């Protein structure tokens, strides 16, 4: 009727941007969720500070937790948001419209990535000033790794949501997907002291590399090639999870 033909492209930055804006607007209407996303990691760090009263121990473990908390929170937020989109029928509506799957995933990535930056900024400021966590070098490597962990958590959450038929199941993916990683990532027991089977499991789970990277950052004043390798693995897991998310996001469903 408008006489125009919209040519479908694989990716449209304008549509990804519109989707990111839409997701952020949804969050803006829900201030309690924003407050929790931003404040919970910082509050947990404060709690950790008083649980671990020894400042030497705190300096060692705090960075590991800074890598894990944003991952966990972004996982659950992304899994539930996507599941809701399926359950409400808006995903089906979008799939019948000229929106590419990558536009949708990138939109989510941009929106939650920005939220992750705010989240990590707050947890770092609280930890490095008020809680007195000290680092051998600058805080930038830690901020970079923490944001990448949050984005990884989001990508895993998007992918996991494809396997949840209900919001209730999506919530339970948190303990099912995330807690085993938290047990095996080196947070509780050093990865070097694990039995071969556990160590092997630990090696194939993404959160292990987040903790590894944080450990190296606390051990060295400068960026090392080992940190680069960990970051590369985190990025590879993120890309794989996003590709998995795109593959499980089907235009046609039975």
């Amino acid at each position, binding site marked *: *009727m408008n006489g125009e033909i*919209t040519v*479908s492209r694989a990716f449209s930055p304008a549509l990804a941007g519109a989707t990111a804006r839409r997701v952020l607007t949804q969050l803006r*209407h829900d201030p309690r969720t924003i407050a929790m996303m931003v404040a919970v990691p910082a509050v947990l760090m404060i709690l950790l500070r008083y649980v671990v009263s020894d400042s030497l121990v705190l300096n060692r473990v705090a960075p590991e937790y800074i890598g894990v908390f944003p991952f966990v929170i972004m996982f659950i937020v992304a899994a539930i948001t996507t599941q809701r989109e399926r359950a409400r*029928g808006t995903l089906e509506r979008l799939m019948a419209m000229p929106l590419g799957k990558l536009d949708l995933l990138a939109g989510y990535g941009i929106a939650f990535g920005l939220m992750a930056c705010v989240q990590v900024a707050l947890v770092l400021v609280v930890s490095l000033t008020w809680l007195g966590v000290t680092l051998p070098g600058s805080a930038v490597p830690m901020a970079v790794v923490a944001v990448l962990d949050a984005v990884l958590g989001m990508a895993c959450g998007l992918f996991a949501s494809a396997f949840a038929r209900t919001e209730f199941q999506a919530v339970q993916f948190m303990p099912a997907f995330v807690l085993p990683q938290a047990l095996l990532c080196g947070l509780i027991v050093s990865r070097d002291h694990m039995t071969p089977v556990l160590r092997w499991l630990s090696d194939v789970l993404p959160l292990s590399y987040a903790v590894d990277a944080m450990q190296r950052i606390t051990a060295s004043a400068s960026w090392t090639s080992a940190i680069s390798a960990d970051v590369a693995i985190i990025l590879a897991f993120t890309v794989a999870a996003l590709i998995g998310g795109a593959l499980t996001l089907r235009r046609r*469903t*039975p």
Partner: protein
Amino acid sequence: MKSAESGDGAGPVVSGQDLVVRRGGQLVLDDLTFSIDGGKVTGLLGPSGCGKTTLMRVLVGVQTVTAGTVTVLGLPAGHPRLRARVGYATQAPAVYPDLTLGENLRYFGTVLGLRGRRLTEAIATVVARLDLGGLDRRLVATFSGGQLARVGLAVALLNRPDLLILDEPTVGLDPVLRRDLWSLFHGLAADGTSLLVSSHVMDEAARCDTLLFMREGRFLAEASPAEILKRTGASDLESAFLALASPERSAVRQ
């Protein structure tokens, strides 16, 4: 303005050939061959669970098809170029309750390729057509059932599609609103839009230009209300449907 393939009553806008859809081993659409004329309001009538929604999902390209071919506006159903030309409203409103009306319309309008002044005008048009004035800044979550149904339709109308597929758009609405929506549908058809409207309420059948009577994944009749009444000798369309359905019932199918 209108392209030849989009209708004006000139030939079918949708045609299906031997369409079969199986879902979980169950035959949902049983070898359907049909066509839908342009520039008319075609009613898809039948009891709940007879396959109406599945057929509509096939036409918009979100349903996995087992066998057969379906052509929509001269292209295979689900073709990327159709996504901006076919409007679709599901039974559930499929909009974001945590966005305002204006935010919903702006996001879906952008996805449909509208920008700037064209977007603003398109929104003003659907808001006026569906009597949603003054609700722009209200969260959709606070809307009544009738308002929600109209928001779902407003999104489908945004980019003035050539073909509108509306799944039970008037079910559960008050009589005044139902009458207004049917006059809107006929107004759109008079402007050259083709509409396929489903319902399980037989008293809506008389409001359609053409009818597709459906039962258990098959068509019982494809004709105008007057012709169906004449053929069955029934006094109203409900009795006509029952008369058409009963020989099917006695012939037990495998």
